[in-house]
């Protein structure tokens, strides 16, 4: 049978953003794949060098539309390390709360998209409806629904009042109940049939190809940057969620469990959060180089910063989670998967293309 090359993307219903896979198919089966990126490169690493320090926080947040808060967290952590300052304890807890709420809404968004991709539209609408409650409370805390701009060099911009803490707890209680009421989706016949055994990535392949986030953790690799204990994670009870099914279903299970873990982490933060300042002021300028790694919803986010003692940074390198997950996706696709399963496999890594290309 002669091999045919089919192009998947750059415009496809499962992709909100443009990326192309050139798929070599034999009959209905994929036997080769090549990624084509570069449709939305924005030169953000260059812009980091030209802008001054404070403006770069907003730039970092605009790398990704969904996990913007971890981006600015990584950036400010890096600058703080180069300046030799530490954020106050309360600010570090607030950062964790915002980052975990971000993870919660991102995973809910992903479950909605998964439902939509396999034709389960009522589920998609229900999960996104629950997500709205979280977006509303995020707006009350930060002033913005999507791009929070909460982080600042040396701390955070806004405090969380007692009243708001009560409201967060109320929303968390609601979400816990609401999510439990729709957990049947993981046992749903169609959902299981479409995801179980689809897009297999073994533990060895996950390590060799550098998979990150839920993609790695569903392949039994306990690789989670929160284990490094940045911000307030060092004071919290945290153990990464790991499953060993190595398939798309496992990735859904990891995300499902992580949503409840996030709810617990936010509650723990709210109960342990000490009173005090939310900002350390400093006039120091960043000098030297450092690497910061944090854990957004999609996996490890890598920032390399090099300062030269001026108000501009010498070099900033950003490696986003999807960039690391492209190669594992190629491995999953080229194992002879059915062409009809390609959307589910690609979606299972939760791709974010604009941040991949920066």
């Amino acid at each position, binding site marked *: 049978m002669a091999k045919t090359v089919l192009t998947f993307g750059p415009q496809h219903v499962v992709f909100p953003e443009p990326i192309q896979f050139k798929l070599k198919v034999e009959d209905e089966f994929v036997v080769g794949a090549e990624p084509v990126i570069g449709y939305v*490169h924005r030169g953000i690493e260059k812009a980091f060098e030209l802008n*001054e320090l404070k403006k770069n926080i907003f730039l970092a947040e605009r790398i990704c539309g969904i996990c913007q808060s971890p981006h600015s967290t990584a950036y400010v952590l890096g600058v703080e390390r180069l300046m030799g300052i530490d954020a106050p304890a309360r600010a570090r807890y607030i950062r964790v709360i915002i980052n975990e709420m971000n993870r919660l809404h991102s995973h809910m968004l992903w479950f909605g998209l998964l439902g939509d991709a396999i034709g389960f539209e009522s589920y998609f609408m229900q999960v996104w409806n629950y997500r709205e409650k979280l977006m509303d409370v995020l707006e009350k805390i930060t002033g913005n629904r999507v791009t929070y701009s909460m982080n600042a060099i040396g701390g955070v911009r806004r405090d969380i009042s007692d009243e708001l803490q009560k409201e967060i707890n109320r929303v968390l209680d609601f979400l816990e109940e609401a999510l439990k009421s729709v957990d049947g989706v993981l046992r749903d016949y169609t959902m299981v049939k479409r995801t179980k055994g689809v897009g297999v990535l073994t533990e*060895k392949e996950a390590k*060799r*190809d550098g998979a990150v986030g839920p993609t790695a953790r569903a392949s039994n*690799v306990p690789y989670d940057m929160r284990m490094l204990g940045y911000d307030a994670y060092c004071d919290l009870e945290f153990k990464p969620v790991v499953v060993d099914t190595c398939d798309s279903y496992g990735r859904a299970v990891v995300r499902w469990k992580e949503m409840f873990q996030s709810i617990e982490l936010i509650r723990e933060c709210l109960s342990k959060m000490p009173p005090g300042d939310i900002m350390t002021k400093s006039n120091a300028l960043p000098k030297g180089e450092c*690497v910061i790694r944090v854990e957004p919803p999609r996996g*490890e986010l890598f920032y390399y910063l090099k300062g030269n003692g001026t108000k501009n940074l010498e070099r900033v390198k950003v490696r986003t989670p999807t*960039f*690391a997950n492209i190669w594992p996706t190629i491995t999953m696709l080229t194992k002879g998967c059915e062409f009809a399963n390609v959307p589910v496999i690609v979606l299972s890594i939760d791709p974010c293309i604009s941040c991949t290309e920066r």
Partner: protein
Amino acid sequence: MENDIVVTKEHLLEEVKKFAEKDARFVIATCVDLGEKLEIIYHFDTLGEKPNLVNLRMQFSQDEEIPSIASIYPCAALIEGEIVDMFEARIKGIPSGLLLAPDSPKAPLRKKKGEKKKEVK
């Protein structure tokens, strides 16, 4: 930085193979323009009880061709493609055009003389 290992281009593949034998993860490579020379820092994670980053540093002059580590870590082909585009580094077997279009500015991340930076007032 912590855990730095300095390497020359002749011994690069040898060192990278040692990481592959230990089942280390390839995290990413960062290229930095040092003026006279370029430097690539290969970041690996040795995956102990906690994530542990080890950096392999290699300096080379801009007209030298350096080996690609994609034969050991296939996933490195993507970032090496990016370095070829952004710095016009010459990496064996890695083509340009991954992120940049043919009419894009050449080697945008190389330091240029007289480039204006936005200072705080």
